[in-house]
């Protein structure tokens, strides 16, 4: 059962001119979150935009004695709602509804987990990486951004023991080009791997195709426009295969995580 919490902003850390990490005092929600789940948020008192917006839970925040004190969001500023989150100040209140949606299923050894993140698609992988580490699962993060300055939390993932494969579109860090390039290369020789992907839909489609070709399982987290996050509005649908037909399925309740092969990428 999701909860609605008016969460105080603990801190708002600007990572760059468009990325920020917003720490929210919503321990009740944080304690229930599974990797890949999301929350619907809106600053208290905000009239415009009218609706809440979906954000993956990024980190689970803990105090010195490992007690859960809240959660954070990794947000990329692209419009008005994300600007509001970028400008939020400690002490402001954010209405936060969650946890919502179907989580990732973390694999266990001997299967390896390869996470593929494009840009702000990094968000759901912090909690997933923790879950994988807990299970002793070997994990890698393929992480692509525009340039070196758009790659965040690298130390954080390394500390957890996640192997990093970085790409940038301008070549300023890691490999030059798209994240799918090293992924394709490595999949050619990889065995017993489960892929996890989050990022722009063309990237998800490409990862799903690579997974299919190399015969690996892939779980993708999709980001569709969501009006409610609870299955009420039918705005967030994505075409999903059922036998040889496809149907519009609500990504907020049936997803946001889907088996990559289930989705009809031809029309997305």
């Amino acid at each position: 059962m999701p909860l609605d919490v008016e969460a105080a902003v603990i801190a708002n850390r600007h990572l760059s001119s468009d990325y920020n990490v917003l720490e929210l005092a919503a321990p009740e929600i944080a304690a229930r979150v599974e990797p890949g789940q999301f929350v619907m948020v809106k600053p208290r008192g905000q009239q415009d935009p009218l609706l809440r917006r979906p954000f993956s839970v990024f980190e689970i925040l803990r105090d010195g004695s490992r007690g859960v004190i809240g959660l954070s969001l990794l947000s990329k500023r692209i419009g008005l709602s994300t600007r509001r989150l970028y400008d939020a100040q400690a002490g402001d209140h954010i209405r936060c509804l969650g946890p919502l949606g179907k989580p990732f299923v973390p694999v266990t050894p001997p299967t390896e987990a390869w996470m593929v993140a494009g840009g702000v698609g990094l968000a759901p992988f912090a909690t997933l990486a923790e879950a994988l580490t807990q299970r002793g699962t070997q994990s890698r993060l393929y992480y692509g951004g525009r340039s070196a300055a758009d790659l965040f939390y690298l130390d954080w993932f390394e500390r957890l023991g996640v192997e990093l494969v970085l790409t940038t579109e301008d070549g300023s860090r890691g490999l030059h080009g798209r994240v799918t390039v090293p992924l394709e290369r490595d999949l050619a020789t990889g065995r017993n791997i489960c892929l996890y992907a989050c990022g722009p839909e063309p990237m998800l489609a490409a990862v799903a195709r690579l997974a299919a070709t190399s015969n690996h399982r892939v779980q993708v987290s999709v980001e569709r426009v969501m009006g409610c996050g609870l299955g009420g509005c039918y705005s967030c649908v994505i075409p999903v295969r059922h036998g040889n037909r496809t149907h519009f399925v609500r990504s907020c309740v049936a997803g946001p995580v889907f088996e990559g092969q289930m989705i009809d990428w031809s029309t997305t």
Partner: protein
Amino acid sequence: MDLTCRLGSLTLKNPLIAASGCFGYGTEYADIVDLSTLGGVAVKGLFLSEREGHPPPRIIETPSGMLNAIGLQGIGVHRFIQEKMPELRERGAVVLVNICGTTLEEYAELARILSDVEGVAALELNISCPNIKEGGITFGCSLTGTFDVVHAVRQVTQLPVIPKLTPNVTDVASFARASEDAGADAVSLVNTFLAMVIDVETRRPKLSNIVGGLSGPAIRPIAVRMVYECHRAVRIPILGMGGIASARDALEFMIAGASAVQVGTANFEDPFIWPKLLAGITEYMERHRIARIADLVGTLDASRREKEWISS
């Protein structure tokens, strides 16, 4: 304090109803709201058969509102009865089934099928969805069409029949009268306003369907006026809606003439709104010493006009 609300033969425990298309089939919200505490649940519009609806993007936000063109995606009446009604019954929901057809026969057929289903409390006739060409809206924009649909359904059911009117007409009150004449037990209004948003960078519509229906607080003042007009035109009860987001807003519709209210868009923003609305209404009733909510309905004091200042 008496919060009950009568709609023909149906008595609701309070005047708060979840608006069709904004509350899924009700079951989606069962974790969050005790469905039995609502006056009623108007489920998502149902055709006889399943529908895929329109491709995304299906919604876009607008100043104090939102546009939708879902296209009535739905599981069809049969799956609804099999898959959803058992849970709705078990949870004590008062179910208003919102039905959509492309012909009079389809409306009548839906009514016949649903009349035999335990737990269905009323039929809301969707003749006002602006987003699909095939169906109801052609009836909803014509007085005879409205009369005919209501009449056709009236012939085949004992359930309360509640046509849902479109605001996209010159004189909504005449549609309320046509509904009353055809034997409707109540009318619901308003459905959404036909509208569009264009992305000026790409010069393309923001919705795949080009146009969509506007809902939310932006439309409230128009919807209140329409409820007021209908209240003066008909004797059957009115289910008022359009941008209700607080107890104040619900009371505004009731004072204008709505016996019950529906809440759509606001439930997306705050699915925990229901107990807050109820608390706000009872607080108001206490403060104003109103024992029965029915006594508030249509009590607008429009005598202001008499105070008009006359140039002498």
